[in-house]
């Protein structure tokens, strides 16, 4: 199957996904389960990585600012900009593409190869709507919160790194993060987070839903899903940046 056929099949899958849920109470249960699986269970890894990456950005910026003419508050400014513009929305999404994407593909793929999806269809349930729509809504609603958390923890990590290493003063760092604050950048990051969340929920679902074969194929589909989700996130990141900031 060529790439164009895959794209066509992906959009035709989305047409089935975006239908009214057959029973709201069942949909609500599924949604809460997905918020826990895709959102709450990702809090730890995102917080951990964001905190340390913030620290590393601050330390590296401090070590590279050797000239006495360059003000030290630029360390805080650079850390804030890096976290808000790129790390929190884009790299956190790439991390989630790996963690959540492989989980989605393997769980839906296993349901496919063990005939659980056939069981849903035989019951008269729109399996795509039942399985994928709660994942999309959970991801789109929850990931922007994760991204905001990653921003705060990254900036906090940078401040703590300065405090522990003594490379810069706390006051300079705080001045830097307060400098030239542009609220649009937060909107930009949130828009990116929402778009990437949609990609993270749908591309792995596509790979899982249409898997054929056994457990080996489910494993292969998970790998492919992570690769394609990451590629699409990187490409969309470029286009969104061009569109929103260019």
């Amino acid at each position, binding site marked *: 199957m060529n790439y164009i056929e895959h794209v066509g099949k992906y959009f035709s899958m989305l047409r089935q996904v975006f239908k009214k849920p*057959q*029973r709201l*109470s069942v949909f609500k249960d599924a949604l809460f*389960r997905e918020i826990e699986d895709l959102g709450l269970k990702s809090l730890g890894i995102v917080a951990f990585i964001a905190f340390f990456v913030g620290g590393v950005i601050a330390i590296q910026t401090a070590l590279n600012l050797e000239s006495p003419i360059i003000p030290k508050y630029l360390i805080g400014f650079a850390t804030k900009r890096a976290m808000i513009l790129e790390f929190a929305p884009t790299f956190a999404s790439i991390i989630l593409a790996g963690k959540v994407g492989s989980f989605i593909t393997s769980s839906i793929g296993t*349901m496919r190869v063990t005939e*659980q999806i*056939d*069981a849903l269809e*035989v019951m*008269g349930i729109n399996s795509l709507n039942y399985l994928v729509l709660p994942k999309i809504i959970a991801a789109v609603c929850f990931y922007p919160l994760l991204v905001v958390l990653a921003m705060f923890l990254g900036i906090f990590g940078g401040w703590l790194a300065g405090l522990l290493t003594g490379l810069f003063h706390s006051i300079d760092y705080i001045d830097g993060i307060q400098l030239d604050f542009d609220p649009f950048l937060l909107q930009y990051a949130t828009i990116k987070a929402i778009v990437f969340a949609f990609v993270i929920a749908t591309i792995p679902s596509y790979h899982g839903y249409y898997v054929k074969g056994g457990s080996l194929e489910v494993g292969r589909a998970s790998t492919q899903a992570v690769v394609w989700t990451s590629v699409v996130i990187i490409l969309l990141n470029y286009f969104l940046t061009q569109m929103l900031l260019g």
Partner: protein
Amino acid sequence: MIQVKDLHKSFGDTPILKGIDATFERGKTSLIIGQSGSGKTVFLKSLLGLHTPEQGIISFDGNISKEMDVDQKRQLRQEIGMVFQGSALFDSLTVEENIIFPVKMFTDQSTSEMRDRVNSVLKRVNLPDAHQKFPAELSGGMQKRVAIARAIVMNPKYLFCDEPNSGLDPKTAIVIDNLIQEITSEYEITTVINTHDMNSVMEIGEKIIFLQDGLKAWEGSHKEIFKTDNESVVNFVYSSNLFKKVRALYLNESNS
């Protein structure tokens, strides 16, 4: 009653079903047998609507499936129960949640009514205390019984079973066979079973259809299968020495 006329199904250029006619009656257990690759699973999945045949008619109590609109098809699906080869229970749900799932999805019953329904079907399949267990905590036979309970919880008119005995020990296999047969006559269900199990053929095959290369090669009951001189059926059913001896014994007894 389910009627099938001239059913054809191909995958690409490979024809799988080449024009099958069959009738499955209400309150009876019908078995589809045949070698691997004979088209049994494709036939069953075509009846279920999981495959779309290129040609032919499938009618459920006179209603032709390809002429039904979306709502009628949805209604029909709710009248179908299915027991899959690997049970196909939802891993993330408990036994009770698995069984309650279609009831919750398609009825407006209260929680207590749903619980009563679950209790009654679990009792029917002899698993009265399995409510809170997850499928992974159950043996193969217990999973099959939960799958049967889920299949009958909506009081289906039609029950389909794909290899319900695969992977089960002979004793459990007989328990499952008898359970399906009892449920079929008790609830007046039209039951179609896809099987390789010759014990099932001998025990519960009120009607047996033998498929070969995508065609119906023989049809009869479990009594008639002893007497048949159809070479393909004899080679398939009596391939083991034990069944050959059983057949010889049966024929001797009926001749004398």
